[in-house]
């Protein structure tokens, strides 16, 4: 198996880097905002994964014309427009939840929130 040189297909390397970095932040950070930032980076890497292969070097927009014979594929761009909208909705909802978590738990650190969540469960034990 031949390993791709870094200069060829460099968009793939960037995609992989963003993907892994984003996922790492989601897992490793306790701060809920940072988790969402990681999630957004992770999703962004997918946009690149789709868009880069759609472009042909020397290709133009797919408008039929006698002058051009090489066209780029517009479909990935359209798909990613949809994915971007989904990503924004997810981020907005996530941030709204963080605001509500901050109001009820007075913290946006996951380990502190978890302690409070377990505390709630324990106090139910006490009631029972």
């Amino acid at each position, binding site marked *: 198996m031949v390993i791709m040189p870094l200069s060829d297909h460099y968009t793939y390397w960037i995609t992989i880097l963003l*993907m892994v970095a984003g*996922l790492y932040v*989601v897992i490793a950070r306790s701060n*809920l905002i940072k*988790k969402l930032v990681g*999630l957004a980076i*992770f*999703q962004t890497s*997918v946009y690149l*994964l*789709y868009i880069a*292969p759609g472009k042909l070097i020397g290709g133009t927009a797919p408008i039929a014309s006698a002058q051009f014979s090489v066209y780029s594929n517009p479909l*990935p761009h359209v*798909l990613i427009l*949809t*994915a971007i909208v*989904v990503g924004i*909705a*997810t981020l907005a*909802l*996530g941030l709204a*939840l*963080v605001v*509500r*978590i901050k109001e*009820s*738990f007075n913290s946006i650190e996951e380990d502190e*929130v*978890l302690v*409070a*969540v377990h505390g*709630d*469960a324990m106090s*139910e*034990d006490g*009631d*029972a």
Partner: protein
Amino acid sequence: MSAEHLPVLLVVVPLLAAPLIVLFRSGRAGWLLAVLASMVSLACAIGLFVQVRGGTVISYAIGNWAPPWGIEYRVDVLNAFVLILVSGVATIVSVYARTSVISEVPSDRHYLFYAMFLLCLSGLLGMTVTDDVFNIFVFLEISSLSGYVLIALGRERRALHAAFQYLILGTIGATFYIIGVGFLYLVTGTLNIVDMAGRIQAVADHRPVLAALAFMTVGLSLKAALFPLHAWLPSAYSTAPGAVAAFMAGTATKVSLYVFIRLLFGVFGARLVLQDLPLLEALSLLSIAAMLVASLVAVMEKDLKRLLAYSSVAQIGYITLGVSLANQDGLTAAVVHLFNHGIAKAALFMLVGGAALRLGGCRLEVLAGMGQRMPLSAFCIVIAGLSLIGVPGTAGFITKWHLVLAAAEAGQWLTIVAIGASSLLAAAYVWRFVEAAYFTAPRHHGVQEVSVGMLAPAVIMTVACVYFGLDTSFTLGAAREAAELLLGAVK
């Protein structure tokens, strides 16, 4: 004339009713519209099911753009069956939701609850009816995003954290899925499932196809809460409002499993999945682990909602076990259990949700003496619980029977032992409720049975658990046909 538009009406009616509810800004109008839209969807689903029985396939080109270029809605007996489950559970739960929402959600948010409920429903129906892998992603996110909101509407502050946790894991799952779609599109140049199935065999050895299979399997397993990717499920189901827990437990994971089954057999096909890769062996091991470990955790849970949530993880194991056996009986068991488990869990979560409102919690100590105070609710919980165990005469038995037949046909005797052990564990966790409800002195005095608005839908669902255990012509007939269809596609 309108009959040919059934596949799209099914999705569009709840999708349009949702913003209409937001315009009305009234909880009562919202509830009426939600019930009405769910019923229209159910009617469409039944209409489709009648048409596709016997092998007909309905293809609907959205906006009249011919497939594979345009988005195609494609209905066969498998997804028509899932559509009936989703819209049927939605119809019954939406009736139940009125009382549940009044008691659990602040009154200024009632109309928003119903709008979210319908968006979630249309997302789930869309995922099931569409034949376009990217369209599945869009509907998956519609149902997920509205699902996160529904869970966050729970009364306790823990619900917020549960919703956030589900949002993170659900988004990772959906993104993994869409990475898989990207790889498949790169190698096949199409998004249409049927078109893709025809093209993929020529490139089945290419690494992107294998990567796509891996990403999609993990992504959908996260959404379907397949062990060990179930971390979000117990806290989400136990803190969500009663109606939401009942609706999601009955439908959300089932639809993700349907998509998984469809892709496995409809796209990746025979050679890749069944012969070249040990995917089915891995799935079989994880399923057995789910059946045993999650049941064991359920036996030790003190909170009935969490107990039922872990039982869901175990029952999802039965479905994937059926898939992993990949023979006629195994797939029949998997498909029929989508339905049988969906109705049993919806019934249980409705009943427990009602009990939790009356008794102020659903820890087993709190439920002590429920058999005396709320006789009908307690009795129905036991009946639906028997379906979880798989006692003959309940819907759960039909699944277990076919799973055992399938495992015997495959010569996997240890799997049969695991099915037996898991059933025993199920009997143990259902017994814990029986012990609390019937053999413990009541703690509460003057507690009455829940109102008819909550009880009637739950009783209907419980009766369905028994009915579909006795008369299996609808469920088993459809599942058999679906299994033949899936196996026919991979030959």
